[in-house]
């Protein structure tokens, strides 16, 4: 135990003797990890939005104009009779226009000038939860699509799938940017430790003559690197928290997504970031020592 205390004290001594270099290095690591954690934050929240919209079990069936009341009745019966339909509501062209006007609020007056109502009548279906998976919804949609008088069938999956493509892109981008930032962090730490090693070359030589083993000499530097990465990651998380409360949490999501809450990084991702900082510090130091401490 006293050995570990000695190594930690030696590492803190190293840091205090090269405080400015260590601060600059930790700050740079913090900025790099902040960018990376920003990507994580976007990704986590987009996935949240997708998940929320996928749980929305409403299907909208847009109807062709000019359907006879008899055809409409038949269509309603057929749609209501489909396996998976929990409830059904008919929205006429007039009701659709009225709903749009109320959604637009003060700007509803813009619709006054329309010569004819462009909105289609629709049937709004709610599905039973057991029919909420992607394949079941596709089957229901195909059946609805084939019914007489149906123009189009829209389900939340449609745009959720488009959003998923975007999320895949964000994930790929964060992998690429993350990889580059990881390399940058390793490089920064390796160079900081290199400066410390160079500054203490004579001291290390003396320690070797006194019989210090390589591990005795290396451990304080490794701890120094790990501390740099660890505190850099903590600073990045603190910065992200400020960014989250100042900007992200203030964002108002559009209608339909009001139930989705924009969240901060989940604990496991926060821990991952801190652990990644420490591991990067360790790796950077290892590379640096391999190159600059001769046996």
């Amino acid at each position, binding site marked *: 135990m006293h050995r570990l205390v000695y190594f930690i004290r030696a590492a803190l001594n190293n840091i205090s003797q090269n405080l400015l270099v260590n601060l600059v290095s930790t700050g740079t690591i913090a900025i790099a990890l902040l960018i990376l954690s920003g990507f994580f934050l976007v990704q986590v929240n987009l996935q949240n939005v997708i998940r929320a919209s996928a749980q929305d079990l409403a299907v909208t069936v847009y109807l062709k104009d000019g359907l006879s009341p008899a055809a409409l009745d038949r269509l309603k019966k057929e749609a209501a009779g489909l396996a998976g339909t929990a409830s059904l509501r008919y929205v006429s062209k007039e009701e659709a226009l009225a709903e749009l006007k109320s959604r637009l609020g003060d700007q509803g007056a813009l619709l006054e000038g329309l010569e004819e109502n462009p909105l289609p009548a629709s049937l709004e279906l709610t599905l039973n939860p057991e029919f909420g998976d992607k394949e079941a919804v596709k089957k229901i949609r195909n059946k609805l699509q084939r019914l007489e008088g149906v123009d189009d069938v829209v389900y939340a999956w449609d745009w959720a799938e488009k959003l998923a493509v975007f999320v895949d892109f964000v994930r790929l981008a964060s992998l690429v940017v993350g990889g580059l930032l990881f390399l940058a962090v390793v490089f920064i730490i390796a160079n900081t430790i290199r400066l410390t090693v160079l500054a203490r070359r004579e001291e290390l030589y003396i320690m070797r003559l006194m*019989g210090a083993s390589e591990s005795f000499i290396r451990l304080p530097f490794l701890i120094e690197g790990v501390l740099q990465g660890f505190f850099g990651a903590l600073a990045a998380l603190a910065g992200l928290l400020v960014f989250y409360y100042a900007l992200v949490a203030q964002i108002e999501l559009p209608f339909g997504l009001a139930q989705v809450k924009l969240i901060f990084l989940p604990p496991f991702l926060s821990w991952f970031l801190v652990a990644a900082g420490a591991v990067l510090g360790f790796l950077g130091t290892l590379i640096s020592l391999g190159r600059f401490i001769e046996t």
Partner: protein
Amino acid sequence: MIKMFDVTKVYPNGPAALAGVSLEVSKGQFVFLAGPSGAGKTTLIRLILCEERVTGGQILVDGMNLRRMPARRIPALRRKIGVIFQDFKLIPTRTVFQNVALRLEIEGAKPGYIAKKVRYILKRVGLEGRDQAYPLQLSGGEQQRVAIARAMIGDPLIILADEPTGNLDLGLAMSIIRLLEEINRNGATVITATHNQEILAETRHPIIYLDRGRRVS
């Protein structure tokens, strides 16, 4: 304790620093290594410390063959040896206490034991109360005493002193030699390299003379 057989050391593109040197230093002996600058005294000490490897011949230290010694075992060899240099080689950013304690910290001794032993050793070399000073705040003689305290604190089997009196006047030089003799009386084998003729003239210890890399007596 130390045996050398036909030891040769040649640096790349240079003349032989040592050529066919053989010697034996028994356990508990005090030996002077004498000769002018460039005679090979420092090279010989560096070979015993395994800072350099021999080009030819064999060196045995406490039964260990240095020629075949793997690098990972060098620290253990060096922990058996206390080493003193002409330029002291103290760490300027560490206090006297921290410089002397280094050897015990390397061995993994507990802080309480280190504190007690460092104070005891500093008292023995006449530096009581100077433990919080930094090397640059000390005189040359005091710095050399710190270096001796650091060399002796681990109770080494061997003390290697490379021109330990080189920067000191005769009075201080003799006090350093007397300190080394005291360490020798406590059981350590001492090899002291010097070209100081006044010290050599006064000593009754065996002297090994080197000249241009060869043993001349």
